[in-house]
């Protein structure tokens, strides 16, 4: 039934659709934050400290009397920005290294694959924290560090795709006709290997959002007064006995966002990958 309504299989996949709706709603809220937010997210109001959720403050206020709903909206901007930029960096590095490795093979492949192995054997969270210890924590450093420590999966995916595509007839035909390396890579190999990369990028945003909120929660991510879901939760921890709303809302926001990206990613994988699609039909 549903499949007839939509032409593209990705749209017919209910999981992907739910994920897509969640993500677009949160993105809209984040983009329109200045229009929606009822208060200035950083405005301190000493007469409104730790107020329960009410008509005036939908999600209550924090220990400095700031409106939690407004801070949540601006926090959404940070979470999504960090997630998307970090994954952009990781995907960029992954595509370049994976393409070099899979296309040229030989010593370049050996070196790049060993580098992947090395990066995979250093506990990621330790690596991220160590780098942050040497730099200063800021939103830009967080994005760069998460990006630089999460490109290994994409590299392996692109390399595997390139290795198998290189042996296909259409690539050989093009090569025989005298196509140069650049043309082969950008016109034939890359476009045909993007499907798994898109899926892994969407799933990557989910884990980047989790890492960023974890770092901010530990005080090593986005720094106050800039709002992020992670650092609202840090306040929540402090006031957990008096102000449940400070913990509940950011936690739920992270949960829903990550769930949205995971649903979208898994749904896309099911819809775009003929192998698992066949598996489901059986």
């Amino acid at each position, binding site marked *: 039934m549903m499949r007839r309504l939509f032409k593209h299989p990705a749209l017919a996949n209910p999981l992907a659709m739910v994920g897509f709706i969640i993500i677009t709603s949160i993105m809209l809220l984040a983009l329109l934050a200045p229009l929606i937010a009822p208060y200035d997210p950083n405005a301190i109001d000493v007469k409104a400290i730790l107020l329960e959720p009410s008509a005036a403050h939908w999600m209550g206020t924090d220990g400095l009397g700031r409106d939690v709903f407004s801070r949540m909206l601006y926090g959404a901007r940070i979470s999504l920005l960090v997630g998307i930029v970090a994954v952009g960096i990781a995907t960029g590095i992954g595509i370049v290294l994976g393409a070099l490795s899979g296309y040229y093979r030989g010593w370049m492949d050996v070196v790049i694959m060993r580098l992947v192995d*090395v990066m995979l054997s*250093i506990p990621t969270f*330790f690596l991220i924290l160590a780098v942050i210890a040497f730099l200063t924590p800021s939103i830009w450093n967080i994005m760069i560090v998460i990006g630089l420590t999460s490109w290994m999966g994409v590299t392996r995916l692109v390399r595997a795709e390139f290795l198998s595509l290189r042996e296909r007839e259409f690539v050989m035909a093009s090569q025989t006709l005298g196509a140069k390396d650049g043309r082969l890579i950008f016109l034939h190999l890359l476009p045909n290997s993007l499907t798994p990369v898109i899926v892994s990028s969407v799933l990557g945003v*989910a884990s980047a959002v989790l890492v960023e909120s974890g770092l901010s*929660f530990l005080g090593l991510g986005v720094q106050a007064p800039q709002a992020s879901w992670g650092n609202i939760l840090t306040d929540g921890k402090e006031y957990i*006995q008096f102000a449940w709303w400070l913990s509940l809302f950011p936690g739920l926001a992270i949960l829903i966002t*990550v769930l949205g990206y995971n649903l979208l990613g898994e749904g896309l994988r099911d819809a775009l990958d003929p192998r698992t699609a066949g598996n489901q039909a059986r």
Partner: protein
Amino acid sequence: MIKYLLKRLFWMVPLLVGISLVSFLIMHLAPGDITTTEAGFNPKASEESRQKLREIYNLDKPITVQYGLWLNRMATLDFGTSFASHQRPVFWEKTDPQGNVSKGLIQEALPITLLINVLSLTVIIAVALPLGIVSALTQNRPPDRAITLFVFIGFAIPGFWLALVLMYWTGVVNSWLPISGLHSLQYDQMHWLGKVADTLRHLALPVFISSLSGLAGIALFVRNGMLDVLHQDYITTARAKGLPENTVVYRHALRNALLPLITIFGLSIPGLIGGSVIAESIFAIPGMGKLFYDAVLMRDFPVIMGILTIGSALTLLGNLLADLAYAWADPRVRRGVLK
């Protein structure tokens, strides 16, 4: 088997060199001298501590010499002493000329983190295996749907948030479980059974938190692995020759579906070690994660570099063990047919 072991050990050499390079790079990542950066964000950094940094990482020597000395530190597992006021050795105990033994920081923290990880892995196996099997056997029916929902939530739930909520609910509201530390105050006077029970009570929440995302991942993995295997021809053959369904599922299918799990466990070690930072720092468990977090906050560089190296070495060791276990379990790998 011996030949396989030697081959695997040989493969670890380039990885160790790579790890030494990456960690060396991190040390020099800070713009300029790490001593000046430290001073930049830590006004308390005295000339004395800068001098110590220069000494420990030989920052006044040429870069190649510095790297050689860093390699030497890694090879001898001597990561110097902590910058904290106790000045304890980073890795293992040392005896000073007066005969006083000071315990190594990692020496004390590592067993605790290993205990948490072993318990987490046990919980993961005990819960994720049945979930995955049930899910595969009831594909697309209500039990499978419910388990899949649980898996997605397990992936998405921020561990530190759940930790916070559970801590509040079981510790503050109901006081069922202790919410911080490893032992109760009366620990020393307890019977050994009481000691075990006390430690387990303290570890219940941290173990639950650190096993949650692994649990979801492994359940999904077992489900998909079982589905793959159940659709293979030899399963149809087994059914066709009239074997009982239980024999088909548990003897023929499950065994093959579980093989790749060994590798997955090997691969999940860096995540478990790294993930210990959040669980341990929330519940104040004095393991590697908390040690590392405190070191990062204090910019205690010798401890940071020591844990980074030891953590990576443990990961390599875990992967090696996983590969050996795989070779032991699957004769095709051992004889070099696969891989």
